[in-house]
């Protein structure tokens, strides 16, 4: 696994891989890859005809078929499209939700497969990647019990020249089900996050978290995870500001520190995130029996949920609510929140509410991410920014941050990003710090 990672970095650090016609590929290959063109398991000489590049081929056998199926189920809770990318580190399956507030990535190491051929790069030196309708892919793995009972082998292959991704299930009694899926070429889907930057970590067995989450109704949208003094961990259903408090039932669960394998939370924090997307990962975690780690920071910064295993790495990145009313207690309890915030952005900020830099396009990337209804991509003009700041200064209570910012699309909590003085600072500099990003395309980062 470590070796694979090293290669990945090398690959990514060579952004401008030589485009062009057939010729020796300039990118490094792991000798492990079976070069179909060569027809035998020799060390790769690095020479490939672009058109003769090996196609992707992965074979999953035995119990791993069900694991793959469960991964697809978990991803289906996130988004409508499955991004599939064979890399030298393994096969990655990713999904992102429409509001770009949730991103999940399952990376299956080559050892997970009975046979793993990532295939070579195409004429432009680009590795193959595609996206498929989630509905279609999920339909193949729909019934997990029948996957377990009847499917002995699953083959996923692609011929770059064909326009179909082939998923073939070899079942009992000599039955073979072949699915030819149409796909779309796509850009790299990569969330920027760094677990090392997160100040707080919780690690627990999936069972503990499943038992905790069962007390909340299935339809509950958001949940607040809090860590209090003496390591007490609480989960509470999040009640919208707009909902009448006298009409909503509030459920709170307290877990003690000893239920967790690891609690490293330097100070009291509360983060609010979407439960529905988390549940998908939880049910995968439960069946895999792996401990689940939660890495988080201050409210508004994304939380990373991960599972790790020699054969599989799973990451779920969820945006958290930058809700001043939820975090105000944490703030008044200790002003340390502010300490961690980079001075450059908040030096002039004297507003109580927690401000998070919005997701912006990074100037250095050529491509602008598509405008998202959730994270506005364009910086409002300085005039509106000032207006926003003024109106929020005027409001005493924790008013809807959305209301303070003119022109923001209505009512979706996780994009209630506050534009205030951050913007003015941001405009002052050429490129906002990339670490503020929650999601972006075409960017480097760890998966």
């Amino acid at each position, binding site marked *: 696994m470590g070796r694979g990672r090293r290669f990945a970095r090398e690959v990514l650090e060579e952004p401008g891989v030589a485009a062009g016609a057939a010729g020796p590929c300039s990118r490094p290959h792991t000798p492990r890859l079976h070069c179909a063109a060569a027809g035998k398991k020799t060390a790769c000489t690095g020479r490939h005809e672009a058109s003769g590049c090996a196609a992707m081929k992965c074979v999953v056998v035995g119990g791993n078929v069900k694991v793959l199926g469960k991964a697809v189920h978990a991803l289906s809770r996130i988004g409508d499209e499955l991004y599939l990318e064979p890399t030298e580190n393994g096969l990655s399956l990713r999904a992102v939700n429409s509001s770009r507030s949730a991103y999940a990535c399952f990376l299956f190491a080559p050892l997970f497969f009975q046979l793993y051929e990532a295939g070579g790069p195409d004429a432009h030196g680009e590795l193959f990647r595609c996206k498929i309708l989630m509905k279609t892919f999920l339909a193949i793995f729909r019934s997990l019990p029948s996957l377990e009972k009847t499917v002995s082998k699953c083959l996923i292959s692609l011929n770059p020249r064909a326009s179909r991704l082939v998923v073939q299930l070899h079942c009992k009694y000599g039955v073979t089900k072949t699915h030819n899926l149409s796909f779309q070429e796509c850009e790299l889907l990569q969330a920027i996050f760094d677990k090392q930057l997160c100040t707080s970590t919780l690690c627990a067995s999936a069972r503990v978290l499943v*038992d*905790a989450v*069962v*007390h909340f*109704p299935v339809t509950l949208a958001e949940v607040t995870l809090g860590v209090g003094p003496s390591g007490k961990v609480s989960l509470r259903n999040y009640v919208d500001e707009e909902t009448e*408090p*006298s*009409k*909503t*039932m*509030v*459920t*709170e*669960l*307290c*877990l*003690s520190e*000893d*239920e967790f394998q690891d609690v490293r939370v330097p100070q009291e924090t509360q983060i609010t995130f979407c439960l529905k997307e988390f549940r998908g990962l939880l049910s995968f975690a439960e069946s895999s029996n792996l401990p689940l780690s939660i890495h988080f920071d201050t409210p508004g910064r994304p939380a990373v949920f991960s599972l790790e295993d020699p054969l599989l790495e799973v990451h779920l990145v969820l945006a958290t609510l930058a809700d001043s009313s939820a975090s105000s207690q944490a703030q008044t309890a200790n002003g340390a929140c502010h300490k961690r915030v980079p001075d450059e952005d908040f030096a002039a900020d004297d507003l109580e509410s927690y401000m998070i830099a919005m997701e912006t396009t990074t100037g250095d990337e050529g491509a602008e991410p598509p405008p998202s209804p959730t994270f506005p991509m364009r910086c409002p003009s300085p005039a509106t920014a000032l207006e926003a700041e003024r109106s929020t200064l005027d409001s005493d209570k924790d008013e809807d941050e959305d209301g303070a910012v003119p022109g923001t699309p209505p009512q979706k909590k996780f994009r209630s990003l506050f534009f205030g003085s951050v913007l003015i600072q941001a405009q002052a500099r050429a490129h906002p710090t990339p670490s503020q990003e929650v999601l972006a395309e075409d960017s480097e980062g760890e998966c």
Partner: protein
Amino acid sequence: MRFRAKILDVACLNHFTRVINTIAKLAKTCTLRLTPDKLYFILTDKVANGGVSMWCELSQGNFFDEFQMEGVAAEHNEIYLELTPENLSRALKTAQNAKTVKIKLTNKHCPCLTVAVELPSLASSSRIVTHDIPVAVIPRRLWNDFKEPSVPDFDVSIYLPVLKTMKSVVERMKNLSNSIVIEANLNGEMNLKIETDLVSVTTHFKDLGNPPWVSDGDSQNSTQDRDPETMAEARVDIKKLQQLLAGQQVNPTKALCNIVSKRIVHFILLHEDVYLQYFIPALA
């Protein structure tokens, strides 16, 4: 006004949960009346309910190991709360293996019935789940609205058939018609009828038995004079009947209904220590 109660016994907890689940199926919001000895779930016959009304009575001693309450005043030692039973049902749903369940009246952001469930856990300390269910306190001047309904002057009283059978019959009929006719006579015969343009279906039940009512005055005479073959009937909303039957998770000890011809059908279900009355008005 104070209220605290605790359930320690698993069987009591399961039973209480079943009662709450039944109530939740019958009413979206209802009134909970607390007295030192009993709990009542009451639904009055407002137009919003479609004219149905409900009276459910439980003895607290059969469920709670501890029960303390202080009403609004010494001479009116009762508490009336309006709540959504579905919330209570949800809170109890995942509490079935709890060590203890405490219910108390609290004042958080608004008056709440707080259900605190202590669950077993692998760690040294138990896991606690609290549910704050918002309630509304009903002032004393409105208490008269929630009096126990009197048994109507019925034409026929009859024991119900096995509820499971009745439920499956009514469920299938629900697909065909919006209303159902319940008719019965003093010979222990009951029919459930639906009639539409395309089809009419009748299910006949026999040998059900008629409960012996001891009443005074004219009503007794009228039932005695009544021809045992004559059916008393009422046409009711089939959904209301189906809700009542669907809420019955266990077959009651006693189940009967009183029919006031073309006016109202009055159901009485007695399950061990829980006494439920449910009125469905006849459709015009």
